[in-house]
């Protein structure tokens, strides 16, 4: 008997069919990934396995059997006994998924007691045991902490501990690492892998990230519009995808391990930038080395695996659309132009808080942005990259250091924000939002403003007639285009993009990245591209700065930094990026594990 057997599952919310006739099975101890973009219905399937749609008014058809229980027909009590005990779920956002008011250990103990009738004391002991099991240091003491006292990675470990408490047969992980930094993501995925090996539980992994799936499961099921697109062993589906959609999805995934993506290159038509051969653009004078010795050995070996991956997936990258126009990756860097410097920052520092609590979010950062060039700024959360971006635009005053051309909010430096939903006023038409910078500049001729906004809308791939529409009428990608149009309205020379594509699906992400490249080429713009995603940054940047703890640890031409990173932290970051090739992913995992054991032995 299979652990999970889903037959012809259909889930509808009113008119919408989120899942449409889906069937699959998962054997005991096996691992399956549901992969798809947002709206594909993958999370809906995960919820259906635990009968979570019951009582929500959703229509659920077909048959779902989990650990021998018919989820559709089970009574509420039977269902409660399934949830958490036989099949446990780990959610995407570990902060909001834990109750902020109770200690973490108490929350785990509560779940344990629901299923075992254990005494309070025994349940508490079990909570500490599982917290220890998932690698929370000093679990006894930390179990009394509340969720906000944990870091993102520790919270996710705590949720996994909750899932482990009753030793379930099935673990359902719904985007378990999406909210986490890449190095933490690698740790959590490794943890899931180890737990699976040791407990023999089955894993259903729901993710939008093909890379995350590649290293974690045996089988992969690609979903779109609630249906199966392709289903098979992970190596087959990712190596030789049979369906066009799977290929499209794979092609859209930006890769960290090799150049040649649809990287917007400099030699398009109307390229205004004069090119002069010369030495590489100024390398930040402050690049310094900070990393613990232990981390370094992990990183070093991981990086060599990464280079292997580069060759492995080289073939598939060649088939990507848009590569034809791409010049060899290094080209732009080698002809590193002494084009006009449009933005220069020297010794930037920004402190928050006062007195003893003061800390520097950005510390002694210098950089140069030239016309027509993209500077990528990459780092994990808390590295100071957003603070830096805001200082470059003039939204924050630096505590020390200076930016030239300087002074207040600079109209020739504009910003594109991360969240295209919250950065547009929902009560004003998009045309009005785009017109704001024009009006701020003193433009008063209504006809002229409307005309210019129409031009901008068309420029970013929308229609001029969209002027009077409101943000909710657009998709995420379209809204980000509106955000870009608004930034363009002020005729900037530099656009700072703060995580411009991190809220978007991969295929949409690729389109927005392509648009930014096109604009840069045609308008001679310089871009500062702030992101946590190493692959995207590699795809778009000429120069890249790696940030950690408010400082730039490595700064230089993108291919140089990615292919021969000098800083141990950069190497560690690159080793943590999930590989698309399952074999490579396994190799990297082994490397990381060896490094950890080495560390533990010391």
């Amino acid at each position, binding site marked *: 008997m299979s652990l999970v057997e889903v037959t012809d599952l259909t889930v509808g919310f009113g008119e919408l069919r989120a899942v449409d006739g889906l069937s699959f099975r998962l054997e005991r101890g096996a691992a399956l990934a549901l992969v798809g973009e947002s709206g594909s219905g993958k999370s809906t399937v995960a919820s259906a396995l635990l009968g979570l749609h019951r009582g929500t008014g959703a229509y659920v058809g077909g048959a779902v059997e989990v650990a021998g229980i018919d989820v559709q027909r089970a009574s509420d009590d039977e269902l*409660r006994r*399934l949830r*958490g005990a036989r099949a446990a779920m780990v959610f995407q956002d570990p902060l909001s*998924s834990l*109750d902020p008011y109770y200690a973490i250990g108490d929350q785990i103990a509560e779940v344990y007691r629901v299923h075992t009738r254990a005494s309070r004391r025994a349940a508490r002991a079990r909570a500490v045991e599982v917290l220890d099991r998932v690698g929370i240091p000093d679990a006894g003491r930390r179990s009394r902490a*509340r969720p906000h006292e944990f870091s993102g990675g520790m919270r996710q470990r705590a949720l996994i501990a909750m899932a482990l408490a009753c030793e379930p047969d099935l673990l359902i992980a719904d985007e378990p690492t999406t909210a986490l930094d890449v190095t933490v993501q690698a740790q959590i995925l490794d943890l899931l892998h180890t737990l699976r090996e040791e407990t023999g539980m089955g894993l259903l992994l729901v993710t939008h990230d093909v890379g995350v799936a590649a290293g974690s499961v045996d089988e992969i099921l690609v979903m779109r519009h609630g249906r199966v697109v392709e289903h098979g062993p992970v190596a087959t589906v990712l190596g030789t995808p049979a369906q066009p959609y799977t290929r499209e999805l794979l092609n859209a995934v930006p890769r960290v391990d090799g150049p040649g993506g649809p990287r917007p290159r400099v030699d398009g038509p109307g390229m205004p930038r004069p090119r002069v051969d010369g030495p590489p653009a100024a390398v930040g004078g402050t690049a310094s080395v900070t990393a613990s010795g232990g981390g370094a050995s992990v990183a070093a070996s991981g990086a060599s695996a990464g280079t292997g991956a580069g060759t492995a997936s080289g073939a598939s990258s060649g088939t990507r659309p848009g590569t034809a126009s791409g010049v060899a990756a290094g080209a732009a860097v080698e002809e590193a132009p002494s084009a006009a410097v449009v933005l220069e920052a020297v010794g930037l520092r920004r402190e928050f808080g006062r007195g003893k609590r003061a800390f520097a979010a950005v510390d002694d950062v210098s950089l140069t942005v030239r016309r027509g060039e993209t500077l990528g700024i990459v780092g994990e959360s808390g590295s100071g990259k957003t603070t830096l971006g805001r200082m470059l635009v003039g939204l924050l005053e630096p505590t020390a250091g200076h930016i030239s051309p300087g002074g207040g909010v600079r109209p020739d430096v504009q910003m594109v924000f991360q969240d295209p939903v919250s950065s547009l006023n929902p009560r004003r038409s998009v045309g009005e939002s785009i017109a704001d910078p024009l009006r701020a500049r003193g433009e008063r001729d209504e006809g002229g403003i409307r005309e210019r906004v129409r031009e901008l809308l068309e420029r970013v791939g929308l229609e001029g007639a969209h002027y009077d529409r409101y943000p909710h009428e657009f998709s995420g990608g379209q809204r980000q285009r509106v955000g870009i149009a608004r930034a363009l309205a002020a005729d900037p020379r530099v656009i700072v993009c703060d995580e411009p594509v991190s809220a978007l699906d991969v295929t949409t992400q690729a389109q927005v990245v392509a648009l930014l490249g096109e604009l840069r080429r045609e308008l001679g713009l310089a871009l500062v591209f702030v992101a946590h995603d190493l692959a995207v940054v590699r795809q778009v940047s000429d120069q890249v700065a790696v940030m950690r703890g408010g400082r730039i640890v490595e700064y230089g031409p993108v291919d140089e930094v990615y292919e021969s990173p000098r800083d141990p932290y950069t190497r560690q970051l690159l080793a943590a990026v999930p590989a698309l090739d399952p074999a490579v992913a396994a190799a990297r995992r082994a490397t990381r594990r060896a490094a950890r054991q080495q560390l533990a032995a010391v």
Partner: protein
Amino acid sequence: MSGFMGNGSTGNGFAGFVLRRAVGVLVTLLAISVIIYVVFYVTPGNVAQITCGPRCSPAQVQQVADQLRLDDPLYVRYWHFLEGLVAGQDYSTGTAVQHCPAPCLGLSYQSDQQVTELILTKLPVSLSLVFGSMVMWLILGVGTGVLSAWRRGRLSERVLTGVTLVGVATPVFVIGLVLMIVVCGELELLPFPQYVNLTDDPEQWAWNLLLPWLSLALIEAAAFARLTRSSMLETLAEDHIRTFRAYGVGERSVIGRHALRGAFAPVIALNANNVGSAVGGAVLTETLFGLPGIGRELVHAVDVVDLPVVVGMVLVVGFFVVIANALADVLYAVADRRVVLA
């Protein structure tokens, strides 16, 4: 070592919080008193004539005006008021000199009674009414709110929502009158209420206050029910509620343990406001049930332009509003450790 430092700093944080709050209370109260003085100063009407009575001759009126120092400029009168508050004051009442110890809020223009004493006789009545009623409205309101959030969309929820709507819309004198006519008049379950001091006879105190409590609570409970319901529904939609449902925790636990605690913050805030303002604002309830509380006295004092009484009572009411809100802030911080007391 680090633990010691940590404790020290949180201690300072809390003491600092209380200190800042206390200063805030003082400043607010001073501002209130200035405003009242100015308002009364610019209000038309001859205070001396009203105080003396309609039959006084102009000479008598002038005498009263001299005695009350009504001809002094505004700032001088206000300064006297502050002096009395801090150091006490001697008042000549025509024949004798009366000493009013600090904190002296002055003498009533009407009765020559010391305002501080007057307030001390009225305050227990108002506090009895408000705090007893508060217990009822919290139980009724939060209970109804939780129930209707739980039963959302079902018939029982619609009935509850309807009842609370009626509650919000009904004036207290209607509910109070109906209660009195039915309970005391028709059924003769209780005697018509008459205030008895808590210290004199606790049992009689409670029985006599039962109807006033209930009628005030019914009105207030309606607002609490609606607030609790919407706040519960918001919390129930949060991710951590989903977590516990997905782990097989029963609905009773999910609602009682996890959702209610999250939904409580706005309830605490509303309660602080209502308790504070009901101390001086439950005029209708006090009048209806013949309770000699602050609210009634305040309305009367405004009628006869008895400035010292008005100022004193408004300050006391203001004090309770501000204190109730400060307490709510502390409760917030206790309920949710993420709130930093800064």
